[in-house]
C-alpha cells in the first residue's frame, strides 16, 4: 500500500477544510476505501481523514436518517445542509 497520512478531524467544519486538500479522502464506516487502496488505485490517495462520531452529529439533524436500507449513492453532501427524508423503510 502506498504511504499516506492519517488525520482525525476535530469536527465537521475541520473535516470539510482538510478534506478539500489534494489527495485527501474521507474514511467512514461502510466504505471500502482501505481495500481499494491496497490494489486498484493506490496512488490516488495521499492522506485520509476521519471524523469520529460524525454519524451521531448527522443523527441530530431532523429528518435526516441513515438506516439499514439507505443507498450510499444517494447520500450527497448537499443533503446535509438541505435535509430531505432519505430513508425508505417501507
Amino acid at each position, binding site marked *: *500500500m502506498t*504511504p*499516506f*497520512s*492519517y488525520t482525525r478531524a476535530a469536527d465537521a467544519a475541520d473535516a470539510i477544510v482538510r478534506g478539500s486538500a489534494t489527495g485527501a479522502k474521507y*474514511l467512514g464506516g461502510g466504505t*471500502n476505501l*482501505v*481495500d481499494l487502496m*491496497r490494489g486498484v488505485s493506490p496512488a490516488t490517495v495521499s492522506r*485520509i481523514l*476521519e471524523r469520529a462520531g460524525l454519524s451521531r452529529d448527522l443523527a441530530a439533524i431532523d429528518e435526516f436518517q441513515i438506516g*439499514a*436500507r439507505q443507498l450510499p449513492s444517494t447520500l450527497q453532501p448537499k443533503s446535509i445542509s438541505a435535509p430531505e427524508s432519505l430513508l425508505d*423503510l417501507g
Partner: protein
Amino acid sequence: MTITINGQDVRIPPDPRVSLLDLLREHLHLTGTKKGCNQGACGACTVLVDGARIISCLALSVQYEGRSITTIEGLASDGALHPLQQAFIEHDGFQCGYCTPGQICSALGMVEEVKRGVPSYVTGDLSAEAIALTDDELRERMSGNLCRCGAHNGIVDAIAEVFAEPAQ
C-alpha cells in the same frame, strides 16, 4: 498512542497502513483472529470493538486509538471457555475451524445489535420494541461470516442455544 487488546494496553505502530488484523496477527502474534479474504468479504477476521463487531482487515489500527478490542483469545476466563465457545463444540459448529473465531466474535456483536433493536433485512416489524432472534434473523445477521466447510447448521444451533429465546 495505545489501544487496549483483551485488557492489555498496546502501542499502536506509527505506520497508519497497519491494519488492525495485521497488528493482532503479525505484531502481537494473536493468531486466533484469521485472515481469510483480506477484503472484508468473508468475516473470518471479525473482532469486537467496545462490544461492536467489525472486520479487522479493513480497519486501520490508528483508527482505534483508546478503544478496547476483544479477540477470540479474550473470551475465555480463567481457563473456562465462553458459553458460546462451548456450544460450538457441542453442536459441531466447525470443521476446519478457520472461520470459527470470526463466527463467535460476530455472534457476540450480533446479539448486542438485536438487544439494541437494530433491524435486519428480514425484520418484519421495524417499529417493534423487541426483536426476536428467530432462525431467519439469526441466519441473516450472521450472513457476513462465511464457512466453506458448510458447518452453518451447527453454527446456527450453537448460537441459538446460547442466545435465542426459547419457543413460546
